[in-house]
């Protein structure tokens, strides 16, 4: 039999996360700090709305773009938080998670050989999605000394004549880094100069701990060259509902809708009804969860300080990204040893790009009690390592 597989799919490496997942799954009663989703269940009133939608028999397709009332709520939300207007009729598309928007956005934008700038460490799907559709990935290795923010110099040096798209992954998974307004202004200038299009993945936008999140779409002339991606997974603890959305200029949303229409049809109907409720009445829940994450974040930063473990203070998402270079091990070695000796799982930074080498992603989507136990074990572990050295 011939090899029926495409070259491209064979060239994609399986996610480093997957590899680590397999090791952790085999270990009994390990504490995992490796989860990239909220520990909260979806707030009850949102679930209730989903149940109600089932009862009413809302079991059919919606329009390809998503329920109009939902797109209207999304439009209101962006207007309220960023002061930018998107027409719900033709500038907003409801997708199956933010992930789908990343995929079809890239597919709608890229020709063979177009260059996509991807700052790393960052979420695992940008590079493979871009590669599958013919994009050529150019990575920027973000630095801890810049708190993993993207600097104008770094951006400038990655740009070539073939650059078409910049992925802007903030608030960032796995580093917890954010980009503040002044940071964005500096890179926006270069983006416009070089006529680049931005895919801004803002799925963690509600989880920032140093003022409100500022989107690049709110800067002068950036709305026209940006695809804003967001969703319900992180802000409303709705990961399993698989619901996201994107907002962009009509010429792009129109083309993306074609791909979405043929590949997906529409996002899950029940989830869409629940999401209307989330946007209408979910603000208190978001505030409660944010405050809770923030307390855990402060706890971890304080613990690291006491242990003498180097870590910049992250102001976004629910991850901390401590540096483990002092122990002379790779991230993977450290994570594996930590798991074997102390039964705590934290994801090696390298799962999110080569520049994650020397770092560990620790998720604080866990109860304080659990984090406390895990941190006691981490302290014991690094104490042992330091003594050995």
């Amino acid at each position: 039999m011939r090899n029926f597989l495409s070259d491209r799919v064979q060239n994609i490496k399986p996610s480093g996360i997957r590899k680590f997942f397999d090791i952790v799954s085999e270990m009994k009663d390990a504490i995992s700090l490796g989860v990239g989703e909220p520990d909260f269940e979806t707030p009850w009133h949102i679930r209730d709305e989903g149940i109600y939608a089932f009862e009413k028999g809302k079991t059919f397709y919606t329009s390809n773009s998503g329920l109009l009332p939902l797109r209207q709520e999304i439009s209101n939300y962006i207007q309220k938080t960023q002061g930018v207007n998107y027409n719900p009729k033709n500038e907003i598309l409801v997708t199956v998670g933010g992930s789908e928007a990343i995929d079809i956005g890239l597919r709608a934008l890229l020709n063979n050989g177009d260059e996509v700038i991807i700052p790393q460490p960052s979420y695992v799907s940008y590079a493979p999605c871009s590669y599958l559709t013919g994009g050529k990935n150019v990575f920027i290795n973000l630095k801890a000394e810049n708190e993993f923010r993207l600097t104008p110099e770094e951006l400038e040096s990655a740009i070539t004549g073939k650059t078409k798209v910049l992925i802007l992954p903030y608030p960032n998974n796995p580093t917890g880094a954010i980009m503040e307004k002044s940071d964005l202004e500096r890179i926006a200038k270069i983006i416009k100069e070089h006529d680049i299009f931005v895919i801004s993945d803002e799925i963690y936008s509600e989880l920032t701990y140093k003022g409100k999140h500022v989107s690049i779409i709110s800067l002068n002339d950036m709305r026209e060259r940006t695809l804003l991606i967001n969703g319900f997974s992180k802000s409303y603890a709705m990961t399993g509902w698989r619901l996201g959305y994107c907002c962009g200029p009509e010429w792009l949303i129109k083309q993306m809708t074609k791909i979405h229409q043929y590949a997906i049809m529409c996002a899950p109907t029940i989830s869409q009804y629940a999401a209307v409720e989330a946007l209408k009445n979910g603000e208190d829940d978001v505030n409660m969860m944010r405050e809770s994450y923030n307390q855990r974040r402060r706890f971890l930063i304080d613990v690291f300080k006491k242990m003498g473990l180097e870590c910049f203070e992250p102001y976004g998402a629910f991850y901390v990204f401590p540096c483990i270079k002092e122990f002379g091990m790779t991230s993977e070695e450290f994570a594996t040893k930590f798991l074997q000796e102390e039964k705590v799982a934290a994801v090696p930074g390298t799962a999110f790009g080569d520049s994650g080498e020397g770092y560990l992603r620790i998720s604080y989507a866990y109860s304080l009690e659990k984090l406390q136990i895990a941190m006691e074990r981490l302290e014991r572990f690094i104490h042992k390592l330091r003594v050995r050295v």
Partner: protein
Amino acid sequence: MREQLLSIIEKNSRIGISELAVLLGKEEIEIANEIKKLEEEHVICGYHTLIDWEKTSIEKVSAIIEVRVTLQRGQGFDKIAQRIYNYPEVKSVYLISGGFDLMVTLEEKSLKEIAAFVSDKLSTLDNVLSTGTHFVLKRYKVHGTILDEVNEDTREVVTP
């Protein structure tokens, strides 16, 4: 900070000052002063422990009693409520809008004792017109805490 401080210690009154300071990003002295103030203002009225007595061998029976009262000149609800809440077996007393006036919760060792309290003490008060006693069969959620909740993490162990 007040609201956040209260919502933490409402759930966990054993948490220490230094831990609170870390969680809220404040100095320990600020936290200590705030707690002192809250105690003085009687915003914090006590530090109790939530116990599921059913899991012990100690017998306890609870009842919720609806009480209808008549008011007399110069004597508002407060006066009658006081007559009732002074009994040590009374756990709580609320003034209620709607079909009756006061809601009284009671905890005793047996059904008999509750019945005795209602017939001998509560019903005989001058202002009490009638009572309706509801015995508690099972407590599912108390003080915002689900008593038999199983907190199992059903998430995948590692996800991107």
